[in-house]
């Protein structure tokens, strides 16, 4: 019994190191000078820690702007996707007759995004909105809606129809019932849906890479490009990575309970 526990603990310890090591190495590298990053033997901690990489990541023309672009695009697309997702999810939850459309909607998430990337590029080029925030917001709304609809439908399913009927009899119109009764009841679920949509948009690389160039670029596009002549600025890249990690970590910690439940139950 004791041996079994020991084995489990060792396995877990290995796993944790496996998972956390890249994060540790990111932070370690982000505090180094560029010539220390690839030193051999490796430096397990920067001899003279520096914050200049972070200053670059936050305030430089390219990196700083990419973070702001990412913020705009993630927040904008999440707001629209969750709003539309809530309306559609409500419909699918209350009127069960269109299961076919619901499943079809879900399948759009199963295809490799690169399949859509080229036609989207061509469409946006024709519309003249390439390299704008709007382009990325439209693209991310399209990709986030299936997720938002799926999650919101699940939350709406948990609110009994009779609670809404009681609200109607208490004097609310259908829209006010949704706004004042149903949405407040599932507020934690709405928050979790917002969190996941936001993280998805924040992390997205492929479409951002294809649809943006000099104006609307987001941080994942900037990240691998910090190469000047033959010098690769891993220290700057890792500083930007560390900053980009923060929102996801904060969101996941805040909504841990709801997000775990979401994955376990559905």
């Amino acid at each position, binding site marked *: 019994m004791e041996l079994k526990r020991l084995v489990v603990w060792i396995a877990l310890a290995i796993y944790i190191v496996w998972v956390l090591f890249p994060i540790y190495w990111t932070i370690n590298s982000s505090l180094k000078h560029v010539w220390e990053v690839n030193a051999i033997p490796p430096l397990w901690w920067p001899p003279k820690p520096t914050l200049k990489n972070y200053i670059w990541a936050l305030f430089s023309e390219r990196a700083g702007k990419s973070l702001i672009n990412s913020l705009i695009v993630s927040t904008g697309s999440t707001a629209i996707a969750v709003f539309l997702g809530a309306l559609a999810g409500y419909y699918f939850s209350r009127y069960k007759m269109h299961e076919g459309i619901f499943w079809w909607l879900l399948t759009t998430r199963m295809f490799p995004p690169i399949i859509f990337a080229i036609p989207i590029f061509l469409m946006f080029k024709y519309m003249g909105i390439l390299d704008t925030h709007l382009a990325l917001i439209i693209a991310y709304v399209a990709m986030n809606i299936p997720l938002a609809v799926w999650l919101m439908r699940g939350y709406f399913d948990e609110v*009994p129809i009779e*609670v809404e009927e009681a609200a*109607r*009899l*208490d004097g609310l*119109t259908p829209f006010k019932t949704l706004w004042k009764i149903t949405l407040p*009841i599932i507020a934690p679920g709405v928050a979790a849906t917002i969190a996941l949509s936001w993280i998805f948009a924040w992390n997205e690389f492929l479409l951002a890479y294809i649809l943006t160039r000099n104006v609307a670029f987001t941080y994942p596009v900037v990240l691998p490009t910090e190469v000047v002549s033959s010098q690769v600025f891993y220290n700057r890249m890792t500083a930007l990575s560390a900053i980009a990690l923060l929102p996801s970590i904060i969101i996941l910690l805040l909504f841990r309970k709801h997000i775990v439940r979401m994955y376990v139950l559905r």
Partner: protein
Amino acid sequence: MRVRVEGLTKFFGKNKALDNVSFEVADRAFTIILGPPEAGKTTTLKILAGLIKQDSGKIFFDGEEITDIPPERRNVRMVFQSFALYPHMTVYENIAFPLKVAGVAEAEIRRRVKEIAEFLKIEKLLDRLPHNLSGGEMQRVAIARALAKESDLYLLDEPLVNLDYKLREDMRAELKRMQRELNKTIIYATPDPLEPLAIGDYVIVLNKGKVMQTGRTMDVYENPENVFVGKYFSVPPMNLIEGTLRRKEERVIFESEGFTLDLTEIKDRMTHVPSDAIIGIRPHEIKFSMEKIEGGIKVKTILGEVIGSDTIVHFKLGETLVKVFVPRIYRLFGGEDAWIKIDPKSVYVFDKRTEKSVLKRLSKNG
């Protein structure tokens, strides 16, 4: 408020939930919609409230058609079977909600909630959330929320079903008291035939979306118009025996396999004498004894169900299993000899083909 319903029909998919339902509900009366599950009770109440739209048929409140008025403007109050409390609001907020929506002033809301909470003895629960309440407490809160806003029509959908036996008895008495004090029209749906007998002024019996019978509670109880009402609106259920009716000169004799009964005494009350008939006898109308009864029928017991200080004795009358209610304890194991006697005046006679009663109404209406 008087309520009149004309020809309500409602389909859910292919399933006909209501089939041409018509009835009237008297002003300020306690009317009970009685019927087994799936009879259409909840659907009827929700259509009255405007929560479900009927496929055809009309509804009139005090003679005025309200079919197209949305629920938020009908001012009908309803207690749901599942209580449907707002889970994210405290008991106080739940009760206050309809008043808040109606734009009542804060001080008036506070006064009104306090008054209702006292009336229903839930003052101590006001700060709690619904998931911290017991079933009985939730039910009171649901009633309180329904009462908070004044209305002329209250709908109660099986409000006692989720409660335990003892609490149900108490609440039933309390509901009757409440109705007397409110003096408003109440329509109350239940599958339990005890409830109309205990508290209903009028009863509407529904089955499979159809109205089986309506009327004053005791009138319906004493004059079931068909086999379904006879059997369902009876505690314990009415015994039904299939057989044939034969005229022999001036006599009318009921014959079933291994059992005959002379019904000449009620011949004059029959509108006609169907050859294939079903007779119904309520379990407490059969005289039962372990000793010989003069002119009685000898039977062999099957078992005795002891309920409190009463016994329901099972035995076979010919080929039919019959139950008799005896107001004392008999610990029977089956196979004992016993005697029964049936008073023809207590027998109901139905035409087997139509399942309709062939008896004229008893004049002594309760």
